[in-house]
Each structure stands twice: as structure tokens, then as C-alpha cells.
């Protein structure tokens, strides 16, 4: 016989505290894993207790930032249960539900592969789908398979659930066809388009007939204004649009946000066109959840950074700018952003190959690191696969003497800081587990609070 829900909750919460006390990291998913093992259905019942229901966000890239932006918009009025440290499997959602006493609305970023199960359990009132890029093929399988799972998850959604879609992604935009009333967002400003599709562009071929798309504008990877010259499949009509995009280096990006409720000028304090996409997703989702356009604008402008995604940390008299890299499309945007902000002469790039990073490191060869090369005088290659990363730069034409291979993250960080003049900022591009480890190192030195102590 299953334990009563209250007893399960008490047990799981105690486990989380013990894990934290034992110093085993944040313990952010321990209670959820335990609860899920004891009684998978408990997640459904916990979610059902939220008076305002739940919203779910998924994407290959940008889900953590999108969720953090949406939280910034919504939390003025609504008490949220939000998995802000990126624990985005069913167990992470369960842990967040356990932790959030008195929450009214669940706001969950969800791993692409976990979306069907999470959606089936929490029965969301709104779902926001951002993009699909190739990512960790050893873990997720091929892009097509993830897209197929998303299609069936969308079919299973409650009829009253709001669906928010990125129309600029052919695979995601196609989901609007079967669902009247979907909110479709996208960018409309050819002045910030790329001259051509990037090497890592994935959905280059028509989702219906396989003919290569023609792009009137390609913005980020394969995101853009596409149409099929053979069958006519094209980007769906947009209801939430970014126009007049103005890049402001590393300081931010401004754009005109156009919605069915009116238009506003928005200035983000995080840079890059990819963050315009994240802002559009957050604005569309928050709107679907009842936020006003003024609340949306104010929230987006307050937003500073999501966990490790674009994070500035003061380390003594030097700065650290950390940009997570995890797949070709996301890493390309990180590179583009830092080059736009003034290409650095020094960088620490940390490549790990744990399950959460992807055990197959071949993706680094699909990243366009080349724009860094003209100014990069020194590279500190770090992480468990530091040598492979060093080879990526060696075969791109970088002088072997300019590359230092230091697998230890702590030593690599110290070396990077040592090479950074006082008052300057060190650029660090880590993969996921390297990012967690580096944050832990600077936290232990007292420069940043551990993530499990940060306000949600």
C-alpha cells in the first residue's frame, strides 16, 4: 500500500536536507528522485494542488533562460514553483513541487526528451516550445525522433491548454498547423540575419517534402523566415514579433516587441539575438498566462542572467564572464556574442564528457569557433577532454604554442585569471558539468553563493 502523500513529502524533504548537510552538492533533485521512486503518481497529485496550474517550457537551447525571464515577469503577482537551477527531468519537477510550499503556479523548464512524460503528469495549462537543434545524439537520438515525440505530446495536451510556438523553427512552427489558437512568435528584421545558413543548421530540408528550404532571413542556426520552393511550406503567420533589433555588444540587445495587445520597446540586459528569441518565448508565454504587456516589458527589462548562461562574477579585482556551451547551435551564439562584444585575446574553454555534457564530444567540430581565432592569442583548454578541444583549435589553424592544455578546472581557472590583467574580464566557455564545477570553485572561494541558496 502506498504511503499517504503527506508522509511521502515529509520523507523526501528530509532526504533533501540530509543530502545538503552531507555536502553532496545542492541536493536539488534528491527529494524528487526519492519521491518519484516511492510513488510516481505523487508528482501528478502535487501538481494538481497548484491553484493556478502549471506552465511548461522546452527547447534544445534557451529553456533555462526563457523560464527565468518568464519567472521575472510573473513573480510580482504570483507565487511560483520554478525549477530555476535547471533540474529539468521529472525528478527535478518533483523536487521543485516538494520545495515550493504555498506556490500558486508551477513554471517548469523541461528536458526535450522528458516533455511527454512531464506534460502527461502535470497537465499544463500552457506549453512553450522554443526550438530543436541537434544535441547530444548519444543521449537524445536523432532530431527527428525528438520532434516526433513532441508532436505526440502536443496531440495529448488538454484542449484548453495554451500552446506557444517558435514559428521560425520549421519543426516547431509546423505544430501550429494542428492547433487553432496557438501563439506563434518569431523575429522579423533581416538587418540582423546571417548572410547564409550556418554549418550546424539542422532543419534545412522541408518537413513535408524534403526539398531544401529557401531562407529570406536566417537568424540563429536554422531559425528564420523559410519557405519551400517545391511544396510551399513556409513559416506560419507570427502573432508575437521582434522587429528593429539593435545589438549592443555584451551589454544587451534592444528590440520592438509587437503583440496582439500592442507594441513596446524592450531593452534586455543580456546580449545576443538568441536572447531575443528567449524574450519572445517568455513574453508569449506570460501573455498566455495573463500578464499584461507592461508587466511583460518590465519583467524582461529587470532580467539579468540565468544560472551559468551569461553570468558575470567578480573574482577579486578581475571579472569572470561565463557562457555555457552545450551544442553547436548554442555555442555558435555564445561565440557570436563575445565576438560582437569585442573579440577576446584570451579564453578558457572547458570540455567535459559526462552524461549531462554528452559523452560524444564530436559536436565541438561542428561549432564555428573560427571567428575567435584572429584575436585569440592564448587558449586555455580545460576539462576531461581538454586535449580534444585543443585539437579543434590546432586544426583550425591556431599555433600550438598558444594553446595550454590544463584538464583540471581549478588550475585552468587560476591560469586564466593569472593571465587576465586586473580590472579585465576573463571569458570562460564551459560545458554543463564544467560550468557546475567552476561555479562551485568560485563559490567555495566566496565569490558567488551556491546555486541552491539563491532565491528562486
Amino acid at each position, binding site marked *: 500500500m502506498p504511503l499517504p502523500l503527506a508522509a511521502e513529502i515529509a520523507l523526501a524533504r528530509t532526504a533533501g536536507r540530509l543530502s545538503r548537510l552531507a555536502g553532496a552538492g545542492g541536493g536539488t533533485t534528491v527529494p524528487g528522485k526519492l519521491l518519484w521512486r516511492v510513488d510516481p503518481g505523487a508528482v501528478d497529485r502535487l501538481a494538481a494542488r497548484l491553484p493556478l496550474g502549471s506552465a511548461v517550457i522546452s527547447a534544445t537551447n534557451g529553456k533555462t533562460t526563457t523560464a527565468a525571464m518568464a519567472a521575472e515577469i510573473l513573480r510580482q503577482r504570483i507565487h511560483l514553483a520554478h525549477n530555476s537551477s535547471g533540474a529539468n527531468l521529472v525528478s527535478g519537477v518533483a523536487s521543485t513541487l516538494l520545495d515550493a510550499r504555498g506556490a500558486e503556479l508551477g513554471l517548469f523548464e523541461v528536458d526535450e526528451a522528458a516533455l511527454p512524460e512531464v506534460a502527461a503528469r502535470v497537465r499544463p495549462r500552457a506549453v512553450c516550445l522554443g526550438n530543436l537543434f*541537434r544535441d547530444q*545524439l*548519444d543521449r537524445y*537520438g*536523432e*532530431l*527527428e525522433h525528438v520532434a516526433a515525440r513532441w508532436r505526440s505530446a502536443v496531440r495529448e495536451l488538454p484542449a484548453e491548454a495554451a500552446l506557444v510556438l517558435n514559428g521560425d523553427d520549421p519543426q516547431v512552427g509546423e505544430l501550429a498547423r494542428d492547433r487553432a489558437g496557438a501563439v506563434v512568435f518569431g523575429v522579423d528584421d533581416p538587418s540582423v540575419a546571417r548572410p547564409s545558413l550556418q*554549418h550546424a543548421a539542422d532543419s*534545412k*530540408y522541408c518537413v513535408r517534402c*524534403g526539398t*531544401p528550404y529557401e531562407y529570406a532571413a536566417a537568424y540563429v542556426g536554422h531559425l528564420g523566415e523559410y519557405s519551400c520552393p517545391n511544396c510551399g511550406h513556409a513559416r506560419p503567420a507570427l502573432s508575437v514579433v521582434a522587429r528593429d533589433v539593435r545589438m549592443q555588444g555584451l551589454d544587451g540587445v534592444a528590440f520592438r516587441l509587437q503583440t496582439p495587445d500592442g507594441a513596446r520597446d524592450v531593452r534586455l540586459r543580456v546580449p545576443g539575438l538568441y536572447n531575443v528569441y528567449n524574450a519572445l518565448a517568455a513574453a508569449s508565454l506570460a501573455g498566455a498566462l495573463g500578464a499584461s504587456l507592461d508587466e511583460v516589458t518590465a519583467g524582461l527589462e529587470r532580467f539579468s542572467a540565468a544560472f551559468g548562461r551569461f553570468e558575470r562574477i567578480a573574482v577579486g579585482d578581475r571579472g569572470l564572464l561565463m557562457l555555457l556551451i552545450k551544442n553547436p547551435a548554442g555555442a555558435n551564439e555564445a561565440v557570436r556574442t563575445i565576438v560582437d562584444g569585442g573579440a577576446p585575446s584570451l579564453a578558457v574553454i572547458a570540455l567535459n*564528457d559526462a552524461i549531462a555534457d554528452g*559523452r*560524444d*564530444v*564530436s*559536436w*565541438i*567540430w*561542428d561549432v564555428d569557433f573560427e571567428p575567435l581565432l584572429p584575436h585569440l592569442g592564448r587558449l586555455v583548454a580545460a576539462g*576531461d*577532454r581538454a*586535449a*580534444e578541444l*585543443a*585539437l*579543434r583549435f*590546432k*586544426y*583550425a*589553424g591556431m599555433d*600550438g604554442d598558444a*594553446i595550454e*592544455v590544463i584538464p583540471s578546472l581549478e588550475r585552468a581557472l587560476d591560469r586564466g585569471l593569472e593571465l587576465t590583467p586586473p580590472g579585465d574580464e576573463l571569458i570562460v566557455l564551459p560545458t554543463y558539468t564544467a560550468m557546475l564545477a567552476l561555479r562551485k570553485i568560485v563559490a567555495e572561494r566566496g565569490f558567488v553563493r551556491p546555486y541552491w541558496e539563491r532565491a528562486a
Partner: protein
Amino acid sequence: MKIVVGHLYPDYLNIYADRGNIAVLARRASWRGHELEVRTVSVGAPVEPGEHDLLYVGGGQDREQALVAEDLVAKADGVRAAVDSGAALLAVCGGYQLMGRSYRDFHGGDLPGIGVFPLETVAGETRMIGDMLLECELEPGVARTLAGFENHAGRTKLDPGAEPLGRVVAGFGNDGESGFEGCRVGRAVGTYLHGPLLPRNPWFADWVLAQALAHRLGEPPVFEPLADDLEQQAHTVSASRARSRGGRR
């Protein structure tokens, strides 16, 4: 000397960082005073007799692989003629499967192959994913290792007597049962190993380059060694990954 590479379908078959393999061939050729010229051969373009010293074909997702399979059949005579006249060929993952006689996907659909390699592939229910280590003896008496990553649903069966690329030390290989991986026919090699394959296996990159030059010179040249410390370091890590966590048969 100029080495002409025909890169088949780089716009469709590029999923496992195939451009890393090309970058390694280009640099290592130039360090030896040669020039690698890479020509794209995509859908609709023929493989002209005698044009290429090396043909390269990479891996793709199922969808892209199906999109090119039919086109490759139209190129079959050109590819076979190139290989028969001594051009080198390197085929990785999906490209390796298409260079066999046929590929049957999990739903029973058949993709035609072009029979450069004496093998057939049938997709299984599970994917074979993980780090892999091989031992090869491409020249009699010279055993060397190749380290990389495999991720394939296809079970590839070599015809009796066909020559595999190597013996599996750790990982799955062709079919997860035979203990062998890849296939070699003269200067043509097919394999599931990506990672990409060549950066962390510099001896094999040089072997492929030498085979391509042999198409010009009649004999593969002997190269002066390069400073491959980083490459060896990457190889060592990759090999140890395969030993500790490669797929188990």
C-alpha cells in the same frame, strides 16, 4: 602535390563532425607540402572518372540518409570506377552503410547501397552507442589502435572472407557480435568510428593521405612524422574511455 578530395553530400551527411576529418587531412597534407582541394559532390552531380584521389562520405540522420540514398545509386558506377582505378575512399557511419550493398531500416524499408564494400546492414531495435577502441593491422605485422565513438542502430554483416578494418578491443563494432569493426577493400575503408575519427588517430589520417597520394604516385609515400603530442593525448583519453565505458557485447 595537389590532392583532390570528392566530399560526397557534405550538406546532408555531416552529423558527426565530418568536417573535422576534412580539416585534419587538409592541415596534415599542407604540413607535408601538399595541397588538399576539397570539391563538393552533392545531389545531382556525377563522380567523374579520374577526378578524385580520395572520396569522403560522412554520416547523417535517417532522414538525410534516405534523401541521398537514391542519388548515390545514380553515382554508383562513378564511385566504383574511382575505387577500382585506385582512388582512396573513407566512409564513416551512415556513409559506410550506403557503401555496402543495402541497408534495411527498422521499419523494414530498404535503402539501396552501391556495393563498394561486400556487406549488408539491417537496423536493430537498440542503438549501439559508446566509446570504441580497435586494433588494426593495415600493414602486416604493424598493429596500431583507433579510438573513437560509435552510435548506430545498423548491424553490419561482412561477407565471408571480407577484410574488416580492425578487431574490437572495447565497444560494439559492426554488429556487436562478430568482434570486428569496419571494412577495408584495398584503399577503401568504411567504419562506424567517428569522434571525429582522424584528429585523435593521426597515424590513420596519414595512412588515408598516403593512399590518396598513391592514386597519383602509384605507391603510398612515407611521411616524416609530425609533432603529435596533443593528438596522442587525445587518443589516450579516448582509448581509456572506451576501456572503461565502451559498449559491452
